[in-house]
């Protein structure tokens, strides 16, 4: 491993500032957001889950999407906004060294936002689809109670999607990120 070097060019610092500022604003929004403010991310996610699993969800106004068959509620806590923040910030910070001009940096921030949104809908739909199956099976494994298993499943799905997204983006932009 080569030694770490902490020289941050001004352009990269600008990208980092934009990414972290957006992340902070999104986090502040999410901490107060109710179900009605999260339709832009929950609705496509639930549609994708229904389409891939065949599980029908009903809209429960102001609360979430409920599957009466599975007794499974997709609530605002399931929106995946934290993953959206992680994906967006990772792409901006990790790929900023590939940008040489201001226009490229603007494209990076906008492209990262779009890619992070798409990845969030896909990852969250996959996470919820697996969670429905685990819930249905009442799965538990030693110290892994159903709620711990649900948490572990979420981390596994989200983090794998994050690594695949970052590696694909690094390959596309040509940035070298090996240790």
């Amino acid at each position, binding site marked *: *491993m*080569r*030694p*770490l*070097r*902490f020289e941050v060019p001004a352009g990269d610092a600008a990208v980092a500032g934009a990414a972290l500022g957006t*992340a902070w604003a999104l*986090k502040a929004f999410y*901490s107060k957001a109710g179900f009605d403010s999260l339709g832009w991310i929950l609705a496509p996610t639930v549609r994708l889950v229904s389409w891939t699993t065949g599980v029908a969800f009903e809209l429960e106004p102001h609360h979430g999407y409920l599957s009466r068959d599975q007794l499974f509620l997709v609530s605002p806590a399931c929106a995946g906004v*934290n993953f959206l*923040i*992680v994906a967006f*910030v*990772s792409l901006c*910070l*990790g*790929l900023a*060294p*590939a*940008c*040489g*001009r201001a226009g*490229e940096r603007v494209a*990076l921030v906008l492209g990262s936002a779009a890619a992070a949104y798409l990845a969030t809908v896909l990852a969250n739909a996959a996470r919820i689809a697996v969670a429905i199956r685990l819930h249905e099976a009442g799965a538990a494994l030693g110290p892994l109670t159903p*709620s*711990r298993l649900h*948490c*572990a499943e979420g*981390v*596994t799905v*989200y*983090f*794998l999607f*994050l*690594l695949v997204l*970052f590696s694909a983006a*690094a390959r596309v*932009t*040509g*940035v*070298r*990120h*090996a*240790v």
Partner: protein
Amino acid sequence: MPSRPCSTLPLVFVPWLTYVAVTVVAPVLNGAAAAEAYADHAVITLGVSGAIFMLWLAASRMRPGHGRRRPPSGSRAQSGK
């Protein structure tokens, strides 16, 4: 974006560090660490994401061509003429 494709910072750590910062560190700053469920969440998040990240790094190192240096951008292979 071909102008500066190489960085000496191990950028592969960026996704993991960002994930841990948002899911484990940020709740501490917001005071959520006092909640009973936080310890479970933090242990599972660090354990699972750390294990996956280690496996990902190991798999990357085993991939054919790992560590092979690319020629600097703009350089051309010698033709022997």
